[in-house]
């Protein structure tokens, strides 16, 4: 299945049975100088217990440990921890030793790995969804409504299991339309509310994301992106919902989009997302993806005492005889007065409305005062976006060498692979320097700050995990930037340093000089294919 991915000189370990033959692969095995090692895994498993061929797995691990020159002690401890029953533990122990001995007796192939030198830390091992869930809880989430979908489901299941620990009302609901609408209702009532989904769910939620927009209701929406469109490839990764979410729902309204670059940021940006949602009374998106949501990483315990900013909420003990829900203000943000309060009464409405949320649809439509009010309401809502852009949206950050010859530009979870690639290139290059500029605060782009950073780039290459270049579109649209080239990874697999270097396959170190003419220039987009 994965034969084609074997590197020249690699080692092929297979389950040697009477029925299976490698004949049809032999010419390629010879050509790639692959070392072949057949282990009768099933037969050996049956020797331990006739009814448990599954022990072949542990036997193969025992064999691998020997090939890699690693001690068996650690793995034996894991077996003891993972399996409860003593008889099962014993069988697995035997299997591990059996596999280990097989290599000792039958093969001299060894690839010795250096044992770890760092002391294990008291860190936590979490995935991106855990980080988002705990970030939401720590920032004051009180209501989650969600429909299961890969790869966002574990946000729902984790918070369902910890609803009482955090004091969160968690509801699994009938569909994503209900999920977003309930969250809008809860946000309107005054709690921090969230829903989480993937691309198909975003498509279903679209209409009521607009409801949050026009009613200026804070709500946080997680989109754990996956291969699209439609069902796409649910268990594979893509960064293909950025532009869809910049425009999601009909009509125009302010929104914010954050794309965490790693697990720690999945936590901190979720915290920030709730602050922004309440401060500006807008829908806020967290763009995760399969890679980030499902990847386990060893990180330090999260700081649960980050600053909570609820924005303008009026004191319920006071009276406000002149209260207007959508009062015009300099920053466009109208204070909220939560129900029940005698002065706060209004009807939230998906229709355009006046200061008191009276509908301007129906019989009011087209009247002179309605036209004026409609225009003023757009101005008010979009004033918030401007203030948000200038106040709270962070610029992209640099990593790697200063004043680099080549800069990779990336966003969200692709940053991890790009950073590894930049570090590698800098370590093997004598006189060329590489760096990266990565974005997490996607929308609204802090235009002036982004322009300043982009101006420092000598040669820029945008790396992203989609087909049409969505960050590239965004930068063109809002800051009029065009890169010198781009890499667009669309095969669904996690982007890795190895894969990225493959994209740069014409990159050669010739007398310390790096050729990067391999990178397709934007103008040659249709002529040359890198892959």
């Amino acid at each position: 299945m994965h034969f084609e991915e074997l590197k020249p000189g690699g080692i092929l370990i297979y389950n040697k049975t009477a029925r299976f033959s490698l004949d049809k692969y032999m010419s390629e095995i010879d050509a790639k100088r692959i070392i072949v090692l057949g282990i009768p895994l099933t037969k050996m498993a049956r020797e331990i217990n006739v009814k448990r061929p599954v022990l072949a797995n542990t036997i193969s691990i025992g064999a691998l440990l020997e090939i890699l020159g690693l001690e068996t002690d650690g793995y034996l401890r894991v077996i003891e921890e993972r399996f409860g029953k003593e008889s099962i533990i014993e069988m697995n122990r035997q299997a591990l030793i059996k596999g280990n001995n097989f290599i000792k007796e039958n093969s001299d192939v060894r690839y010795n790995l250096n044992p770890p030198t760092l002391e294990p830390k008291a860190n936590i091992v979490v995935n991106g969804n855990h980080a988002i869930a705990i970030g939401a809880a720590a920032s004051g989430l009180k209501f989650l409504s969600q429909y299961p979908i890969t790869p966002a489901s574990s946000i729902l299941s984790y918070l369902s299991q910890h609803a009482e620990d955090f004091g969160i009302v968690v509801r699994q609901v009938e569909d994503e339309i209900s999920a977003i609408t309930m969250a809008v209702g809860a946000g309107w009532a005054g709690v921090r509310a969230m829903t989480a989904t993937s691309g198909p769910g975003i498509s279903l939620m679209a209409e009521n994301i607009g409801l949050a927009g026009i009613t200026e209701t804070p709500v946080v929406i997680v989109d754990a992106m996956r291969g699209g469109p439609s069902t796409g490839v649910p268990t594979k990764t893509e960064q293909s919902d950025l532009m869809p979410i910049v425009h999601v729902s009909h009509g125009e309204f302010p929104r914010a989009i954050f794309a965490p670059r790693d697990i720690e940021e999945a936590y901190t940006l979720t915290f920030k997302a709730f602050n922004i949602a309440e401060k500006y009374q807008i829908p806020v998106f967290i763009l995760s993806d399969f890679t980030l949501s499902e990847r386990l990483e060893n990180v330090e315990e999260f700081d649960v005492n980050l600053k909570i900013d609820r924005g303008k909420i009026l004191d319920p003990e006071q009276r406000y005889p002149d209260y207007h829900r959508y009062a015009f203000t300099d920053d466009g943000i109208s204070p909220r007065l939560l129900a029940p309060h005698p002065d706060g009464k209004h009807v939230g409405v998906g229709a355009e409305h006046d200061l008191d949320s009276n509908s301007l649809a129906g019989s009011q439509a087209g009247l002179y005062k309605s036209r004026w009010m409609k225009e003023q309401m757009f101005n008010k809502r979009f004033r918030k976006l401007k203030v948000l852009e200038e106040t709270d949206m962070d610029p992209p950050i640099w990593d790697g060498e200063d004043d680099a010859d080549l800069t990779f530009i990336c966003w969200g979870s692709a940053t991890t692979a790009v950073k590894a690639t930049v570090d590698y290139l800098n370590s093997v290059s004598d006189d060329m320097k590489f760096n990266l500029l990565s974005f997490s605060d996607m929308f609204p782009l802090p235009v002036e700050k982004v322009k300043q950073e982009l101006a420092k780039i000598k040669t820029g290459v945008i790396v992203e995990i989609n087909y049409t270049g969505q960050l590239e579109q965004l930068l063109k649209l809002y800051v009029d930037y065009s890169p010198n080239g781009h890499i667009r990874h669309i095969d669904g697999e996690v982007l890795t340093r190895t894969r990225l270097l493959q994209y740069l396959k014409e990159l050669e170190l010739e007398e310390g000089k790096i050729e990067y003419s391999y990178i397709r220039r934007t103008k040659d987009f249709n002529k040359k294919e890198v892959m």
Partner: protein
Amino acid sequence: MVAATELIKPSDFKGGKPTWCPGCGDYGLQSAMRKALSNLGYSPEEVVIVSGIGCSGNFPHFQSTYGFHSTHGRALPLATGVALANPDVKVIAVGGDGDGYGIGVGHFIHAARRNLDITYAVMDNQIYGLTLGQASPTSQMKAITLTTPKGVDERPINPISLAIGAGASFVARGFSGEGAHLEKLLEAAIEHKGFSLVDTLSPCVTFNRLNTYDWFRDRVYFLEEEEGYDKADLSQAFVKSLEWNEKIPLGIIFEDEGASLQDLDRIISKGINPVKQKLGIDPAVTDMKKIFSEFK
């Protein structure tokens, strides 16, 4: 609720001037709703009336309560979010037959089985009125409408049996032409602990020339006056729910006193009001050491 209930008058619930056609059945529900709320001693700021889209969608604008005029078919999820976020407010959802039994029917079924303590009053006029007279999910077979020039050729939804089948714990039918009866039904629905449906026959005088006030008056009767009818008996309720055409029962068709979602939800059942909780991690509630230890 305020202590001196007699101070709240139905007229205290009066909001914006209605834009419904003169004679519209929706006035009947409005009037009965205001009376029911004042009879029960609610003050306007304690009540949130949530609607979807359609002639019925404008209902909250005409009342002085809090309200939310949401999107087409989504009144129930929006109402659910409000009710779970703040159990101290009284949430009433209103809608029409197109809104609730057409585009929003999935939510209707799930709200029924969720059994959240909210009341859903549907102004059922068997037509799409706001869009000028297309067939609706409850339009009768053969009814001539803008979209069925030769008569409706799809069977109508029966909201009563659908609600009972979906697990609703309070299912009633009222009639705009019987205001006093409707008022009592609404009171019972609002008092009921759990999901309560009041399907209200609400004639559209402009676009539905078949199901008129007179058409209903010739057929309706009060279930309370029927000897031996047991509204707690599910099988009797199912049989009763199928009555239409010749005789149309009004009243509480089914009622079950089981636990509501508020009684069962792991947070709300503890008496916690989410909107009144402090934000951030409260060490008295959340043991972060335990939370993090699961990841070690």
